[in-house]
């Protein structure tokens, strides 16, 4: 009996000790500051060439430098990180990069073109989730610090892609020594993942931080890279990325120091706005909600009717649709989100025009025809449930004389129907694969999304010509103009109706400098420092 008592005491002491250890992350900041990032974990690995999840992006951004990166929350302008100069030739099919010569990995080995070639080939050949980023791109070294990348089709978005943490450069010699390979059979032959997920892999990256401990379920801890090559030394002696649900993040960030919460809902965050110890940012997310009307008369003679489409476009009450998402959301002026190059200014957004809508609906002769709006009923993005959104759209359209039925289905079923191109009228969304407007050319006739909306190749030669031109233009100013024109044209006669960008919430304690949300990395911890 007495022995049990002792056991209980020991267990209690153990629990206390581990609780103290858990709080240690926030409590100890005497020996240099600790940055705590609270995040609902989505991470399978920290191996950059395998990882393609938001939490992994936070960590890999700190561990592995990329050729390009972004400053603050901006996604429109990739800026060189490992690159000293670069040029695109041959109609954006060939890119030549010159690497900086002073870069070395955390173990002191210089970073050269062979590391870049190894990393990119490893990315493609592992065939993991991020492999598509460089699919079809050939990479070869040109001297010790030159890298040449070529592709069969124009690749204007390459600098943006090369800012993705999955294109982080690993130390080829060290990774090879631990079972890594970039050969064609890397998907089975590469054995470096386990090693990369341990602190022993510290020399594999050239970023400002190295891995101190790694768990996909509780927390990932980073320590400064003592030999960091960059001009700005790491701002914290420890960075802890912890797995927390939103409600716990809400409590933590209010009592924390040097703390960031990423996953709060807009209304949770608005409750914090009066708190002087916190910085609350509610900004448009990169997700775009949009409706489409199938352009194929074989799918629906109603939704393919041009006048009916115009009527939908001008009947929607875009302001009231925003109310579904709460503060911080904006009307999507086009399909390209507001923070990307080539996005339309707010003033160019379609405005509700009831008279125009009614006239168009009457002209279409299809006003009385019942149309079913299909949406994924179990999906919620940035706190906005699709069901609520669909009900809002229905009420908007019914008010102007449309006859709209709703039909929700589980996301997997909805996706099947949507991808088949047989859906007449759908509520959908698009999140960028990489922060470049080229990702949105898929909406052109005959392209992936175009076909889903029944918009076949040749349906609108003017828009297709513009899309083809966008693909080969590399000059940033020209690209901006082309992509804006592309969206103006879509807004005039395309089968899509961009609705809104919901709210991305980002809360940080006000003792942090440069703590901003970045859609590519969630937060770039390498830029954050204590005030």
């Amino acid at each position, binding site marked *: 009996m007495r022995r049990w008592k002792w056991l209980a005491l020991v267990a209690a002491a153990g629990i206390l000790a581990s609780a103290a250890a858990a709080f240690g992350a926030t409590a100890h900041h005497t020996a240099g500051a600790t940055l705590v990032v609270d995040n609902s974990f989505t991470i399978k690995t920290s191996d950059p060439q395998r990882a393609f999840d938001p939490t992994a992006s936070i960590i890999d951004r700190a561990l592995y430098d990329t050729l390009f990166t972004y400053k603050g929350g901006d996604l429109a302008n990739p800026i060189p990180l490992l690159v000293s100069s670069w040029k695109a030739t041959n109609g954006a099919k060939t890119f030549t990069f010159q690497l900086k010569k002073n870069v070395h990995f955390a173990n002191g080995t210089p970073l050269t073109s062979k590391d870049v070639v190894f990393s990119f080939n490893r990315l493609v050949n592992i065939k993991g989730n991020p492999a598509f980023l460089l699919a079809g791109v050939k990479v070869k070294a040109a001297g010790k610090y030159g890298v040449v990348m070529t592709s069969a089709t124009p690749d204007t978005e390459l600098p943006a892609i090369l800012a993705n943490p999955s294109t982080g450069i690993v130390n080829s010699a060290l990774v090879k020594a631990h079972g890594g390979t970039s050969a064609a059979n890397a998907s089975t032959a590469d054995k470096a993942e386990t090693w990369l997920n341990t602190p022993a892999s510290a020399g594999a990256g050239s970023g400002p931080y190295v891995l101190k401990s790694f768990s996909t379920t509780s927390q990932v801890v980073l320590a400064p890279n003592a030999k960091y090559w960059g001009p700005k030394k790491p701002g914290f002696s420890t960075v802890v990325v912890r797995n927390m649900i939103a409600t716990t993040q809400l409590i933590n960030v209010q009592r924390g120091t040097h703390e960031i919460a990423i996953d709060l809902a807009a209304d949770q965050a608005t409750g914090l706005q009066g708190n002087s110890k916190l910085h609350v940012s509610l900004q448009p997310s990169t997700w775009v909600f949009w409706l489409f009307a199938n352009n194929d008369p074989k799918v629906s003679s109603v939704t393919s009717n041009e006048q009916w489409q115009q009527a939908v476009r001008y009947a929607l009450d875009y302001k*009231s649709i925003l*109310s*579904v998402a709460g503060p911080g959301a904006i009307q999507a002026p086009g399909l390209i989100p507001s923070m990307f190059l080539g996005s339309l200014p707010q003033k160019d957004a379609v405005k509700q025009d009831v008279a125009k809508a009614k006239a168009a609906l009457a002209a279409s002769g299809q006003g009385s025809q019942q149309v079913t709006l299909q949406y994924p009923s179990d999906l*919620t993005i940035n706190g906005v*449930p699709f069901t*609520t959104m669909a009900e809002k759209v229905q*009420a908007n359209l019914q008010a102007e004389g449309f006859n709209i039925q*709703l039909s*929700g*289905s589980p996301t997997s079923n909805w996706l099947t129907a949507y991808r088949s191109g047989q859906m007449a009228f759908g509520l959908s969304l698009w999140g960028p694969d990489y922060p470049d407007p080229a990702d949105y050319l898929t909406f052109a006739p005959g392209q992936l999304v175009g076909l889903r909306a029944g918009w076949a190749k040749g349906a609108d030669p003017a828009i297709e010509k513009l899309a083809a031109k966008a693909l080969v233009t590399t000059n940033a100013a020209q690209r901006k103009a082309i992509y804006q024109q592309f969206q103006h044209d879509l807004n005039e006669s395309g089968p899509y109706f961009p609705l809104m960008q919901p709210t991305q919430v980002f809360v940080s304690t006000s003792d942090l400098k440069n703590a901003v949300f970045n859609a590519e990395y969630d937060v770039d911890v390498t830029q954050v420092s204590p005030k």
Partner: protein
Amino acid sequence: MSSLAYGLRARARSSRIPAAWRQPLAIAGTVIAFAWIVIAVFAPLIAPSNPLAQSFPASESPSLHHLFGTDELGRDVLSRVIYGSRVSLPIALALVAIAATIGSIVGAVAGYFRGFVDGILMRSTDLVFAFPPIILAMVVAAVLGRGLFNAALAIVVVAWPSYARIVRGLVLSVGDSEYVQSARLLGASSRRALVRDVLPNVIGPVFVLATLDLANAILLLSGLSFLGLGAQPPQAEWGSMVAEGTQYFQWWWIGTFPGLAIFTVVLAFNFLGDSLRDVFDPRTARRAVESDA
């Protein structure tokens, strides 16, 4: 979901409630049930606004203007709860009537003819009994497709076997009684014996079961709608309203009031069914009288 299934099983079936307390419960049950029926019938007159009308700003907390507050699209929750009764109550009534009819016919045929017919019919009811009701209803509703009609159909599929089993037992015992035997000897047809002699003895227990089942049907229907298989938006249905409420916990009124509506209706029909059983059962009826005296 698990709590739903649990709720279905844990319905107030027990006779642990002391007999003296039964009458007040019966009265409470009758009053609440009647009130809901009145609300359902006169919904357009009672509801303060159109249950589908959206207003802005949305998600207002309960006030004098909106007694139950407004939901995430600015629709009046009180009006939606009132209109919700027009969905749940009639459908539950109709499908319990259908289930009771189908189950009773199957049970009567099985009990009266016995032998091979009995074997076939009862094994098929056992087959349905083998599945937890909510799971089976979900499967049926999912296969048929979303929508209220299919959800109701799914509940009929789940509900009829209990009637079949009860009626079969009663028919077996009544069929053996001397007056039925004599009627048969006097040349009455099977149909006549079933309708004239057996049916009146069976109707009471079936009626009790049906009243209790009304509560179950409303719960199942709400459950299927909660899971997105029943009523489709924007229709005001209690289960789907509760489901909407779970998306917005910070606005407690969106899910709480439809939840309370389900709660009161289910409780009322349970009270009613329990009391009816006491009335129809000669033993408990006598006991109730004795304890009253």
